[in-house]
């Protein structure tokens, strides 16, 4: 089994107005294909930063991240866009939905750059909306949805793109237990049926059974 993600001595320091803050340091981590990795840690432990680094959304200040052997930190924007579009999907902690766009449009924005046939993706979107109990809410704005429903829209936006690796930053942080189970079951089904890899970050509300491996982050370092 190959490694889809490899972090080597990974570190990230934020510098703002003369002060520096080290969010992550010396992270060595390998994620195998079809693995479900759970990154656990308290708020501020560096989970989101690690997810952002592994997905290529930000570049490391030290070390490197290899995605399928490609070093993300040195890759050009077009390669990063290609990976973000076709290989990975990110479910954000705070959903990152566009407030002026409807549910359907928010999901559509995730699939538009793929230039998929619009008839085909409409079908897929509607199918997911049905599965996540959001049928009939396509034309609502995110602000008109509950927090849990917004979370589901963010999940659907990622799932419709059929990525082979999903980064999920607190994917159930804002939903009730039942919705959390639904989301996690969906992700697990995808892992089983489509062999996707899952990297999830949580402060503790994802049960261990959803992970093949768990790592703990503390003060920007892997514990133990």
């Amino acid at each position, binding site marked *: 089994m190959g490694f889809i993600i490899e972090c080597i001595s990974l570190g990230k320091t934020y510098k703002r107005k003369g002060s520096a803050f080290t969010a992550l340091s010396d992270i060595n981590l390998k994620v195998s294909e079809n693995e479900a990795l759970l990154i656990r840690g308290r708020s501020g432990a560096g989970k989101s930063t690690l997810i952002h680094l592994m997905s290529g*959304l*930000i*570049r490391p200040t030290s070390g490197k991240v290899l995605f399928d052997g490609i070093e993300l930190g040195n890759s050009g924007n077009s390669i990063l*866009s290609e990976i*973000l579009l076709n290989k990975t999907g990110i479910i954000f902690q705070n959903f*990152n939905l566009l407030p002026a766009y409807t549910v359907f449009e928010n999901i559509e924005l995730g699939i538009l750059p793929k230039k998929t046939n619009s008839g085909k993706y409409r079908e897929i979107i509607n199918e997911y909306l049905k599965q996540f109990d959001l049928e009939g809410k396509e034309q609502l704005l995110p602000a008109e949805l509950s927090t849990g429903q917004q979370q589901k829209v963010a999940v659907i936006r990622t799932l419709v793109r059929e990525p082979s690796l999903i980064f999920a930053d607190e994917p159930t942080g804002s939903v009730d237990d039942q919705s959390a189970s639904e989301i996690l079951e969906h992700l697990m089904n995808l892992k089983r049926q489509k062999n996707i890899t899952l990297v999830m970050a949580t402060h503790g509300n994802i049960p261990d059974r959803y992970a093949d491996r768990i790592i703990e982050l503390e003060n920007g370092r892997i514990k133990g």
Partner: protein
Amino acid sequence: MKYLFRELYRHKWRTITGISGYLLASLFLMLVLSLNYSQQNDSVGILRSTGTHFIVYLPSTVSCCRPGCEDPVNGSLIAEGGFAQMLNSDVIETVRATSGVRAAAPYLLYKIHDENLQCDITLGGIDTSNIATKTNVCSADNIIAGTYLSGNMGEVVAEEAFAMAHKLKVGDTLHTFGGKMIVGGIVNSGIKPGKADLYATIDNVRDVLKENLLCISDGFDMNIILVEVADARIQPRVMNDIKKQLSFLAVSSYNCYQPASDVMGIMEGAGTVMTVLIFIFLVIFSAKTQFAGLIERYRELGILKSLGWTNSSLSFSIVLSSVIQSLAGSIAGILLGLLVVFLLGLNGARVLDSFDFIVQPGRIGLLVLLCLAGSVIATIWPVIKLARAEAGDMINSYN
């Protein structure tokens, strides 16, 4: 495209501000260009032909070309008070062929001492149909009494000062230059480099002087070349070119072209500076609007980047959005400009009597192009900022 228009509509006040900027800029640019064009048509048109003349001759120490003719009674070929030799037609052809020369005319200027009138008299033989004669010597426009030269044998026109000094009237007969001359008209030609007391057509003067000027022969029948230049601004260059080609000749000008050339330069420069300033304002204003738009959408663009939207597609949307605003603004500005120019031109509603606004259709295209160029330039910094920013940082910014 759907999302692009959606964004323009969503931020309608910013869009309206952007369009308004282009509207105002294109309106002012249109008025400046129209005024500038009208100035070129009027004042610059006048200045361009101001002082655009000079004379060319061959200075000499010998008064004429006939043995023994040095006796002043026999007369002499002159130019600017000194003696001048005859020139052949090759010289005038060379002058005519010089770039920037609008016209070159032959001139035969001869002076004798008239025993009857007890004074020196200068007689100028001119080519009445040539523009260079008009600007260097005289023309029908200078007639103050009688009629201008018609080409009849023995017909002359007299300079007003000469006529006053000798109490000459239209129709008087002069016995001079070995024959009879009838004063057909009186002219006041002003200060001109080729001024004489009497003027006749050059053929008549050749005929009158054939006894005195044995050197008049085919190809040698003028002693001055009158030159008219196409534009005051190129006069120094034309004079230099002629001096280089015909170094043995004297080239003389009153330098009236100099201030005209300077004024034209200032006027055109002012128009250009005004256009450039408005263009710079347009770019800065538009850049500010586009940049504000980018900052406003910064987080959202970061989200789109995280979804795999490429920098090029996002940059394209920024540029296209700016171009759409500039197109809408410039077209509206041009239409408004046309209306303003029309209203300013109405007799009843004429506000600025001393200014004419003339729309040159070709410049409308230039105006649209300027606005489009401005809109593209304005997006350079936003596009660079977008390309350099990392999606993660953009998402985490809450500006």
